[in-house]
């Protein structure tokens, strides 16, 4: 995905290369955070902190081929930090954080202006349902499922990012998939039903 020399230049303090890296990876890290929290503000917070940390610490990155897992390690750590803060602070309703509601930053999100409004509504409802399923997973299973399913990391990279063994990652994935299967069965959501709806 990245030219090795871009990461190498960023490591040497080239701010242009760092900017390019951030533009290339911002969406991924934001979406990781969003799927983890289902909260735009927290996802933005995590993404910004991640790239500030990247800017400060990329000089210490030894192996450029491990940039991806290194970046997700930072993101995971900030997600956990935010989660701790969130648990200690008063809870905020997820309804307020939904796209299109009063607190959402609509200008920063895709509006799919050309799409059919009814289709968008259904897509939004489906996203809510699926996001709800993700949210019900344990924190550990959610991290692994998002990294594997949506970020496309190899099990080895996830293991590096989370500093755990590959077998533990696979085991968490196994139980995560089983839990999602049960949730979807309870909610009666199948591929066919989604295809029909959309």
């Amino acid at each position, binding site marked *: 995905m990245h030219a090795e020399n871009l990461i190498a230049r960023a490591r040497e303090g080239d701010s242009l290369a760092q*900017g390019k890296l951030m533009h290339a990876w911002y969406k991924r890290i934001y979406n990781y955070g969003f799927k983890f929290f289902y909260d735009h503000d927290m996802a933005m917070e995590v993404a910004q902190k991640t790239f500030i940390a990247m800017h400060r610490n990329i000089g210490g990155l030894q192996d450029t081929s491990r940039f991806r897992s290194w970046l997700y390690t930072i993101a995971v750590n900030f997600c956990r930090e935010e989660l701790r803060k969130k648990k200690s602070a008063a809870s905020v309703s997820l309804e307020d954080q939904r796209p299109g509601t009063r607190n959402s930053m609509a200008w920063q999100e895709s509006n799919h202006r050309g799409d059919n409004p009814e289709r968008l509504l259904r897509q939004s409802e489906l996203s809510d349902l699926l996001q709800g399923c993700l949210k019900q997973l344990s924190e550990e299973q959610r991290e692994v499922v998002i990294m594997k399913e949506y970020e496309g990391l190899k099990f080895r990279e996830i293991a590096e990012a989370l500093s755990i063994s590959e077998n533990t990652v*696979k085991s968490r994935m196994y139980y995560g998939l089983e839990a999602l299967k049960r949730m979807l069965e309870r909610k009666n959501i199948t591929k066919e039903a989604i295809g029909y709806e959309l």
Partner: protein
Amino acid sequence: MNYKPDEATLVAYHFGELEGEELKKVEAYLQEHPAERKRSEEWRQVRSVMAGLADKEVIAPPLIVGNNERPIWREHYFRMTLGIAASFLVLLVAARLLGLSASISNQELRISFGAPTALEQVLDKAGVTQMIQASLEENNASMQTAWDSRNQKLEASIQKNLAGNSSRINSLVKEASAGQQEQVRQFVGQMQTENLKLMRDYLQLSTTGQKEYLEGLLSDFSRYVQDQRKQDMQYFQANLVNMKENTDQFKKDTEEILTSLMASNRGSRTDNQKSY
């Protein structure tokens, strides 16, 4: 086939991160286990449904970073050099204030606070040798004294300990010996009692056995004699019967012979009479 892949292997297979022999084994396993195949298909369905959760589009904010071209006085190496120079300067000033002076003359390094003072007395080689000799002699004498005193104390202590311990050891040996004799006596007595009991039991058992054996022998002999007698009697009876039969037959034969003789005599007499 006993192979059963674990959870991690199944997941790795499902996500296409398995290769080589392991992949073949899992494929073969799934061929034989429809339930596991079904699970894999269900996961595929789950993943395909979850893929409906699309990415959010987001615009990355501009990365504002400080100017990398820092002035030379903010560079690390410059600050380090400056730090070393400042430390050196502080040392020089402190040395000046304390009147520190250092000089090298006649192969001597002299460091002093204030003006250096001349040495009042210089020791020569003979004086140093004498001092060392005197010190060694003094040391030897003190060591000898200490050694003698320690030896005497040690000797006295050994004598005292020997005197105290020998009587204790004697009494202990006596006690042990008495105890051992008593134990031996008890042991021998116990052994004798046990042997006597064993012998008694053995003899009793032996007598009973012999008695039973003799009784058996006598009864067997009596049975044998009776059987023999019975057989003899039967033989004797058979012989008597046989003899009687023989006698009867002899009688019969004799009678027949006599009868035939008498008949022939009578015939010849008749013939004679006829001839006469």
